[in-house]
Each structure stands twice: as C-alpha cells, then as structure tokens.
C-alpha cells in the first residue's frame, strides 16, 4: 500500500469561530497532541498546524481509513461537545501538497497574502521536528513549501500593499514623515482600531499622547500603550505639537473643527500634520483637509486604500497559483524518483547476484586462474551487468523524469513485479507496519541508495 501525504483540517472557510477556538492550541499542547496522534499508529509522520484561523494535521500514512478515524477522533475530542465531521476537509497526494503550498503562501488565508501564516507553518514544522514526527516526505514537503512561499512573495504582488487599517495608517505616516522614530502621535478618544493603529505607530518608535474626555480612561490607555495621558482641554496644545493624530471618539459632531485647526496650523507654522479619523460619525471636519500641510484621511479613505491593495493581491493570486502548480509538479517528480532509486538499486543487485552466482558455478570447471585471468573474469561479469541494464535503466529514468508526475511509475511497478523485487521506499508502506515516531533512518537509507546508484551509473558509462 502506498504511503502518501494527507491533510485533514478545519479553517475559517466554513468552520465557525466557536469551533475553531476550541481546537486552537499553544505550543505545549501541540507537542502533546502531536505525540499522541503519531503514537496512535496510523500516522507515519505528522505536523500539527494550529492558528486562530485553521487547525490542520499534515501527515503521511499508509492506512488512510485508520488515519482519518484517529485524526477525526482527535478533532472531536478537542471540539467536544461540538462534532466536527461536517467541517473537516481532506486532501491526499499531490492535492495535499498543493494545499500546504497554498496555505504557506497565504493564498488560503482569511486576508489574502497575509505573511504571518508562513511563520506559523514554520513554527508548526519546527515543533514537529522537535517531537520527532517528521521524516523524508514531510521534511521535503515543508522545506519546499517555505521556498514556494518565498517565491510567491518575491515574484508576485500577492503580499504587496497593506490591507489592515493600522498598517495603512503606518504606511501613510511613513509616506509623510519617513522615519517615525520620536514622531509624536496623538490619540484622541479610544477604540480598538485606533488603539491598534497607535500601537503600530509606537512600535515604530513614535511617542504617544492620549487625550480623552475621561481622565481615568486616558490614563489606563496611556499606560497600556506606553504613552502619556492628557485632558481633553489640552487638545489644541497637543494638536500643535503632534505629527500624527488618530481620532476615534463616540461624540456627536466634530471634535476637531475647522476653526480649531486654523489656529493650530498657524501655531505649527509649516510642519506637516497627518490626521486619521477612524470615528463614525466623523470627529474631524473634512474642510481641515484643505489646510496648509495638513493631510486628513477618514475611514472611507483608509478602506479605499485597503480595497485597492486587496484587488491588486487578487490579481496577483493567479500568478501565485501558477507558481504553486509548477512547484507541485516538481514535488511529484521527486516523489516518483523516491520510488525509482531503490528499484534501480534492487534490479542491479538482482542481476549482479545472478551473474556472480553463475560465475562461481563455472569457476571449478575453469581450473586455477592466475591474478590477471581472475581480474579479466570479474571485469567480464561487471560488463555483462552494466550492458544488460543500460537500456532498461535509461528508459526507467527517462520515463520518471518526463511527463506528469506518476507517469513513469507504471514501468517502475512493472519492473518490480517482473523481477520480483522487494523494494521498500519512503513512498511505500513498510512490510512491517510497526510504526516508529519518525522515519529517522529514511534519509540515510535514501542517501545510501542514491550513492550506490551514482556508482552504478558511472560503471555503466565506463562499460
């Protein structure tokens, strides 16, 4: 039975947050859960990816039914009392590889092209490596997924342009002021979004002042964001000093009026001021935008930027899909080669074994041979092996390296069948299904097989 990569998961595509939040795990929990999953016996290798938007088990198994049962059992246990069967999606073979590549590249994310997911996939793989639940297939698959994600980022515009309001606020502030270190950010009122934007700006080195009608609220917000509180009465003075103002009050009518800003602009002389009005209804009189060196962006403006960037990402998504298609095909070819290498080694061993056995049988009849004659006989045997195998091996390799992944496998399987070759590869089920946590020796055995094959090829070329 062929061992193949499978993905079982639940994500923001169709799974309600009430279920996802039950399944989300921290690193320690992931280590325990992954250990238990692999110890269950059906998974040969496994990686558990757990974020707020998705929980996925990427595994290799030769017993798909049992693996499914165990993974669903795990999901149901975590989501209890909810049942997850109707939410779970499942991919196998190259579809699973494609899914992983899409996830790592941000194509399957809630916010298309968001970069955090790559870090989360890397973290999940690192944790699995720590647990010892990765082997040849998953290691290669994850390594490849990181490279694919990097390629997608550098060759397409999938991750270009910010789409979150706070990132856009920072980007615009940087377009005006460049470096934000020691720039003064004034937060007027409170609100989750304005707080997030203020935090993003202060994370870039800006200094924060919080003005609020409620002094208590101003103090607590300033403490939480590392700023200083000021009463609402100090608004005009603070506006004169600020570089960036984020306003988000619940007040009806304008908090920052045109008249107020006219006075402020005079005090500021010609210094630029960037005003961000996140409040609905608006806090800042839109006429302020016409004042000298004042730039005003309201919620609609910020959303327009976000939508434009998102549209650009959507246009880039088809390029990203094309890259992923190429990379999946490459991975498929590598999978095929995993089957091919041990088959070639086994075939060569089988033929050599026959030739040497016949040579040993003939030796007594030849009488005593001197060193030169013995060397010539050995050379003859090697030459027979190499010449006999040259054409079939060339054909096998040609078939596996051309066409679609999997095309050359029919011939490989035919050779295995015809010559009764007992081949154990990472892409095949082991004869003894007793599972170890990870096929730790697989890389070494594959390396040995490849090295033996290279030696044999060089011999064939010489003969």
């Amino acid at each position, binding site marked *: 039975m062929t061992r193949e990569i499978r993905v079982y998961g639940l994500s923001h595509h169709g799974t309600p947050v009430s279920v996802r939040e039950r399944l989300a795990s921290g690193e320690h929990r992931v280590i325990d859960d992954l250990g238990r999953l692999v110890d269950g016996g059906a998974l040969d290798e496994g990686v558990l990816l757990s974020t707020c938007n998705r929980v996925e088990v990427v595994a290799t198994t030769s017993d798909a039914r049992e693996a499914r049962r165990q993974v669903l059992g795990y999901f149901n246990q975590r989501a209890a009392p909810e049942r997850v069967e109707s939410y779970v999606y499942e991919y196998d073979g190259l579809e699973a590889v494609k899914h992983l590549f899409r996830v790592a590249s941000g194509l399957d994310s809630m916010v298309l092209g968001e970069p955090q997911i790559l870090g989360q996939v890397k973290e999940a793989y690192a944790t699995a490596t720590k647990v010892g639940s990765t082997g040849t297939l998953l290691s290669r698959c994850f390594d490849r997924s990181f490279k694919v994600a990097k390629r997608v980022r550098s060759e397409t515009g999938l991750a270009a342009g910010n789409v979150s309001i706070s990132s856009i606020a920072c980007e615009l502030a940087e377009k005006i002021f460049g470096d934000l270190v020691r720039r003064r950010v004034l937060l007027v009122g409170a609100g989750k979004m304005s707080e997030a934007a203020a935090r993003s700006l202060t994370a870039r080195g800006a200094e924060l002042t919080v003005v609020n009608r409620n002094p208590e609220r101003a103090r607590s917000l300033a403490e939480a964001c590392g700023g200083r509180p000021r009463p609402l009465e100090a608004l005009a003075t603070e506006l004169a000093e600020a570089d960036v103002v984020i306003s988000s009050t619940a007040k009806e009518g304008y908090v920052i009026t045109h008249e107020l800003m006219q006075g402020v602009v005079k005090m500021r002389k010609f*210094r630029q001021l960037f005003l961000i009005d996140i409040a609905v209804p608006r806090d800042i009189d839109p006429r302020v935008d016409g004042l000298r060196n004042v730039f005003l962006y309201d919620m609609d403006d910020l959303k327009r930027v976000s939508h434009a960037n998102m549209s650009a990402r959507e246009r880039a998504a088809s390029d990203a899909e094309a890259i992923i298609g190429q990379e999946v095909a490459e991975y498929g070819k590598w999978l095929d080669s995993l089957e091919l290498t041990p088959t070639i080694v086994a075939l060569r061993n089988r033929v050599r074994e026959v030739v040497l056995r016949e040579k040993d049988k003939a030796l007594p009849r030849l009488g005593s041979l001197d060193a030169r004659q013995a060397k010539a006989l050995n050379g003859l045997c090697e030459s027979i092996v190499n010449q006999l195998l040259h054409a079939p091996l060339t054909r096998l390799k040609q078939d596996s390296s051309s066409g679609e992944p999997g095309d050359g496998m029919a011939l490989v399987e035919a050779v295995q069948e015809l010559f009764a070759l007992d081949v154990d590869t990472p892409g095949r089920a082991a004869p003894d299904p007793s599972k170890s946590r990870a096929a730790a020796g697989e890389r070494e055995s594959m390396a040995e097989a490849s090295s033996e094959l290279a030696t044999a090829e060089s011999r064939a070329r010489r003969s």
Partner: protein
Amino acid sequence: MGLLTLIFSLTGLAYAASCGLFFVHLTRGKESAVRGGTRLLAAAIATHAAYLAGDFLLENRDPTADIYQVLVLLSLLISVAFLLSMRRARLSVLGAFITPIALVLFLSAGLRGSVPPVPEGVRSALLPVHIAVNVLGIVAFALAFATAVAYVIQEKLLRSKQVVGTFQRLPSLDVLDSFGLKLVTIGFPLFTLGMVSGSFWAVKLGGDPTHLTTGQGFAVLAWVFFAGVLLSRAAAGWRGRRAAIGTMLGFLCSLAALGGYLLRSAGGS
C-alpha cells in the same frame, strides 16, 4: 562619423535608456529597472567623460572654452552628483527626474554652431572660478529641482488619496523636503559667488553694472528665488509645497539664464 560624434551619440543613447528605466522604476516599482538604469547611467557618465577628454585632447577645447562646453560639463557633474547622492540617500527614484535634465543639457551641447571662442581679453584667471562655482551651484540646484518635483507629486498623491498604484516608490515628504533644503543650502553660496565674481568681472571689463542682459536677469531672478526659499525657511519655517515650488522656479530661472547665454553665444554678441 567621427570618433567624437560616435561617443556623443552613444552617451545620448545611454542617458535616454537610463532615463526610460528610471521612469519604469518610478511608475511600476520594478527593482530590476533601477539596477539597469543605474548601470546605464554609469555607462553614460563614462562615455560622457570620454567625450570631454576627447574634445580636450583631439580638438584642444577645454571644458570652459564656450557655453556649450560648460553645458557638457554641467550635465556630467549633475549625473555624477546624482549617482553619488543616490547611494548615500537611497533616492534612486529621483533618477526619473534627474536623467532627463542631464540628457537635455548634454544634447543641447550638440547644437554647437560656429561659436566664437571667448575673446582673449575676457579670459582671465577669474573665468574658470566663475564658471566652476556657477556650475557646481547649478548642479546642486538641479538635484534640488528633482527633489522638489518629487515632493510636489508625492504631496499631490497624498492629498488626492492616490496612494496605491504608480509613483509609490517616491520617498517621504519629510525626506524630500530636508534633502531639497540641504541641496539649496549647498548651491546657494556657490551660485552667489558665481554672480559676484561675474559682476566683478563684467565691471572690470568696462561693463555697466546697472544694465543686465537676459541671461543675467534670469540669474538674478534665480538667486532671488533661492534666497527667498532659504530666508523664509529660516525666518518663518517655510517648508513643504511652497519651498518646493520656490526651488523649482529658481532652477528654471537658472536654466533660463544658461539659455540666455546660449542665445547670446549663438548670436555672436
């Protein structure tokens, strides 16, 4: 085609191609375009220098021989100054504004007609100094002009909320404003020295200091604009759009002053 004409054509082509690539970088944000543009600009500078050297060695014309030679020298120095400042200030995107200036100044030297050389009586030790300080001043103003154009575009984009799509590689307003001011501060004393030395020289040759030619008139106007930019900055904190427009007008006047000299030379007066 003579060797110098060939080098002249190659230089012009390299400038034009470099200009195209910098423009692609500005509008489409392609990094490969800026690398190509920079390499082509470096190649243009090399052939440009070869052209000047060839002119000096083969035609025995030094870079201060006439106004056309001065233009060739000026465009070379503008390109070199840009290449150096671009590395320091990461302002490669300004190449889209600088390379056309260098190209136009360089090509205008190709209009060279039968210009009479500077009369012996006019030649003095002061002439190279007068030309050098003026040229260096205008080099700084040319870079300041490109910076000011970028500032005006960036400000316009931010005001009209066009912050996605083309021209997104422009530096921040603050960087452009500071860099522009620095350049005007460097260029202004040099240009002033050029004007003072020019007046001194003109008076010494018996000219009337109260009578200005068109070129001199524009030079005075350019000086007034740049002085205005610096003074209003120091006195009233002028910056941003107004300073950028003042800088642009100042540079255009200094170009017009050069144009005046060109016309005068072409007319032989």
